[in-house]
């Protein structure tokens, strides 16, 4: 009897607890359902549709969009340039990570003005990307830019060029911008990871008399590997999302040579209102991106992590 009453009471409090949990979970679930699932489903549906502007409706066109998309990717259209450039951003992001680690390691040494330099490196991160691109554009300006000015001052007039306006230099200039503007953020992340390495590790190393490089590869990198691997995966999948930098710097030009997959999608939707093709390419690039990211993750997971 008593036991039954007790369990009834316990049941009641459990029900209350469950209600509480359900209510707490409802909002994030709802949010996920709308912005996670619904929008994805919508994109998949759009990729099988086209806009009929005579009737003002979306019409089903079967695999037409995919057929055209594959044709354009193989036939060498702007979409292919966009995809190639997006893939090129993967090694760029790795180079960015490597550079940031190097800078973070150097700045973690106690030398005069180390924290000042850390702030200098972080500075671009707190400025708006629009301001940064303007500064960068000004410095590469074909007639008044500081880069061409310096080259002229050094007597290297032959090297002066319209950096963002020539096929050979426009995309590399966008890449250099991404390295310059991105290093600060990664630097902060790696500095944080470096500070968590126990001091004894270094002391042991010192007693053994190891060099800077030996310390970097045997002590530092294995200990911060979890952070590095996370950013490698993020950098891989993020390569397919790059669009703002080329949009602001070159508008993808000249002749779409510095465009990216995401920028072409952006322009398909906002320039031409072509939701169908943009969704189709979105799905295709998502598939390609997931594949690449999956392979990279498999490789990254094979590397042993030092436990501490």
């Amino acid at each position: 009897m008593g036991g039954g009453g007790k369990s009834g009471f316990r049941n009641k409090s459990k029900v209350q607890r469950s209600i509480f949990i359900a209510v707490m979970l409802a909002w994030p679930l709802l949010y996920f359902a709308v912005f996670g699932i619904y929008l994805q489903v919508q994109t998949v549906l759009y990729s099988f549709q086209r806009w009929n502007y005579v009737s003002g409706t979306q019409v089903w066109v079967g695999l037409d969009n995919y057929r055209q998309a594959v044709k354009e990717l193989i036939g060498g259209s702007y979409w292919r340039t966009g995809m190639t450039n997006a893939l090129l951003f993967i090694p760029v992001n790795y180079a960015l990570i490597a550079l940031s680690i190097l800078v973070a390691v150097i700045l973690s040494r106690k030398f005069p003005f180390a924290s000042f330099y850390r702030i200098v490196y972080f500075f671009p991160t707190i400025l708006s990307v629009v301001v940064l691109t303007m500064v960068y554009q000004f410095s590469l300006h074909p007639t008044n830019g500081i880069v061409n000015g310096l080259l002229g001052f050094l007597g290297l007039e032959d090297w002066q060029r319209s950096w963002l306006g020539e096929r050979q230099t426009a995309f590399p200039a966008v890449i250099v911008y991404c390295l310059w503007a991105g290093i600060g953020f990664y630097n902060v992340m790696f500095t944080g990871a470096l500070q968590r390495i126990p001091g004894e590790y270094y002391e042991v190393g010192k007693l053994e008399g190891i060099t800077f490089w030996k310390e970097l590869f045997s002590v530092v990198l294995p200990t911060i590997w979890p952070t590095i691997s996370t950013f490698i995966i993020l950098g891989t999948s993020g390569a397919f999302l790059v669009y703002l930098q080329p949009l602001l710097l070159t508008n993808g030009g000249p002749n779409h040579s510095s465009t990216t997959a995401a920028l072409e999608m952006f322009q398909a939707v906002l320039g031409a209102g072509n939701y169908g093709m943009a969704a189709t390419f979105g799905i295709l690039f998502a598939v390609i991106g997931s594949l690449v990211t999956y392979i990279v993750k498999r490789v990254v997971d094979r590397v042993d992590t030092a436990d501490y």
Partner: protein
Amino acid sequence: MKKPIFSLLAIVLILGLVLAGCGSKNDAGAASDSGTSSEAKGADSGSPDDQKQVTLKVAFFQGGYGDVWFKYLKEQFEASHKNVTVELEGSPKMGEIIVPRIEGNTNVPDVVFLNGLDQMKKWGPSGKMVDITDLYAAPMPDGNTIQDTATETALQSQQWLGKRYSVPWSQSPLGIVYNVDIFEKNGWTYPTTWEEMEKLANEMKAKGIAPFTYPGIYAGYLSALVFPAYTQFGGDAFVNKLTNPQESDIPDLYKDPAFLKTYTQLESLFKNGWIMKGTQALDHTASQMEFLNGKAAMIFNGAWMENEMKDSLPEGFRMRIMPIPPTSDAKVKEMMAVADSRDWGGIPSASKHIDVAKQFLLLASTEASNRKFTELTGAPRAFKYSIDGMSLSDFTKSAIEMLSAYKTVSYIYEPQAIGDGPSGVDFYAAIASGDMTPQQVIDKNVGAAPDKWKEQQKTINSK
């Protein structure tokens, strides 16, 4: 045993929340419907002293014309409609940020002014914009009608499938803007034939002055040359075929010599080194700045340029805008300029104050508003109106003269048309960068036209 119950509970709760959300949305929808209908009644019964306070949200593309004209309209409208407060929202990115708002029915303004007709053509038939065909015959506050006062180009452009969803905004000519001081100092006059232009450009180059520049990263500005050239080389018959093609015209239409001549003319600017060095890296502001600094004698640009650059205009800087001179082998040997009426104002169907919004569009189209627009922005509106007694800059006068004294072109494509570049090649950029020759562009277009036509037919005929 217990777990299923809890998950059931969770589902019920989530559903409850979702349904609650839907319910409140429906309520809001109903409220807005009744609001609209009561207002409609108010307008029908002609009782302007409707005491209900109304906030009219006007969203507009804040580009070269700035926001001054909208501030003027707000003042005027609020003065004549005491119960209305006009809320302005201008943005240079309005064309982008308004898309999800209108298509997703969230935070929809009562009036939109945008550039680019594509959105009107998309939103009109799908019911996102109010059909305002009748408004063209409605009397404006000054007694005129839009039907009688809008320009021919505007009346042609601002319609889609026999209906009107928009009123015209500006009619800005695109042409060649030249630096009057450079011309006068060297004893040059603006040429009347393209051969003279070529001679002049070579003279300029010899003197170390770059003949032309344009906003290089937005290659579309080159239509200032390309569109007049189509008509000059091809004549009206060619343009009619291009904008209203029949199946039998495909793909031969794209072999028309007008294309090759036009693209060759475009290519010559780059091949001959007449375009200022570095132009292709510059956006509109940067290239216009170079022009204002006298680095180039001419720039392909529009009548909005002076207003767009008014903060950087050097003291006493003099410029004029002129049409494109014809070549000696042109079919139509006339100087021509592009004069599109591609920007527009309309009313989203989700507006709760459609009748007030209609009043706003009418007020915006009166002769007084047109004159004010020109006075404030230096650009012409797509209406016939007098500019007598207005103090206008020489540049504005040249723009208005260009509209009235020269032939203007504007291409309005019928639904079945597949444009001037069916292959999807961005030919301005391809030719400007030297990546493709004119013949390569044409071969691509001729090759792609039949498929594009089939695809277009399929799309417009599918349900």
